[in-house]
């Protein structure tokens, strides 16, 4: 897995811990994901949590369907992915309207804020639009000190009001991926 920055022995950011605490407080039990470097700290915490089931996916749309099934079976979940994966989900997002289950996804953004890799830009640019066209509310966090409030609000409206919601975690927050030879 690639580090997002080259800063040596930099202290791990605290916002992934804040997200983990919110997910625990909302009794989130199933955590499907396609890995992203920006989610690596949170994924590690989920893998070590006795109350949570981490479910690695082969493609992100699997996670949407998994969460619909989890709800039918009485559990809440959250889907972790990066912006490129949002396009893979489009038809499956129909389930959020048809079954009306509490859908929450946390999306690490690529293709913005100093991106090195042009292949990330098209999907990163349309991520918010794709969600909105699919009936998903979009919130964004760009600074470490706003992550807790934004994710707290998103979890609240997803789980309490059954309002499907995506949180975009900006590349500015995570740091642009550094490619070195």
């Amino acid at each position, binding site marked *: 897995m690639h580090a997002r920055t080259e800063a040596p022995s930099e202290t791990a950011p605290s916002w992934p811990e804040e997200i983990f605490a919110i997910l625990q407080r909302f009794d989130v039990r199933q955590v499907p994901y396609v890995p992203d470097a920006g989610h690596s700290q949170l994924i590690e915490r989920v893998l070590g949590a006795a109350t949570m089931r981490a479910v690695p996916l082969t493609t992100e749309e699997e996670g949407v369907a998994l969460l619909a099934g*989890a709800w*039918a079976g009485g559990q809440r979940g959250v889907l972790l992915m990066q912006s490129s994966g949002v396009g893979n989900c489009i038809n499956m997002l129909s389930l959020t309207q*048809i079954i009306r289950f509490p859908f929450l996804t946390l999306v690490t953004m690529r293709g913005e804020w100093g991106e090195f890799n042009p292949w990330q830009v098209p999907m990163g640019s349309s991520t918010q639009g794709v969600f909105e066209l699919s009936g998903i509310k979009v919130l964004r966090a760009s600074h470490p000190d706003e992550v807790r409030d934004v994710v707290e609000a998103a979890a609240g409206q997803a789980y309490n009001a059954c309002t499907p919601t995506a949180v975009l975690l900006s590349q500015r927050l995570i740091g642009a991926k550094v490619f070195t030879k």
Partner: protein
Amino acid sequence: MSKANLLDRRSVVGSLLADRRDAIVVGGLGASTYDIAAAGDHDRNLYLWGAMGGAVMIGLGVALAQPKLPVVVITGDGEMLMGMGSLATVGLQKPGNLSIVVLDNEIYGETGGQASHTAATVDLVGVAHSCGIADARALATMAEIEGFAKAMQDVASGPHFASVKIDHANLERVLSSRDGQFTVTRIRSALGFGPI
């Protein structure tokens, strides 16, 4: 491939569900959903009329949430091919209570009968086995169907996977509810969960 001795899909599903007990049943988009409806509506049935490729993952979500209940996904070859990666995901999670049955007529029956990949090359039992699902069977007789129905009830020994080659007969549609929110709420109620 020999077309002799192909099974009748309604008889297969009827036999699988005859003694379903507490099982939750997920029906994939297409004729599989009609077959499940033909076997009798049930408050633990989830009928899909879309979300193609998602049936196995929906079943996995239910199975992980309710590990003591049998969860059975019944779907077609076209729907399974679209969600083939989900077999890899199931193989990794190894839910003991999840069973997957593919009714394989080797065609896209809802769209004009075009050949699917299983008609020529793809062996779904082999795929499931390669994905880490140790109990992956090809069922060819009604006795084998009955044996699989018993295995479905053993929530400690899964995941179970079966492919059943069925005939091409275009049977009368038996229409289930198309209201996903209704059917899921009905399942949740049967399990003791209320609305938000």
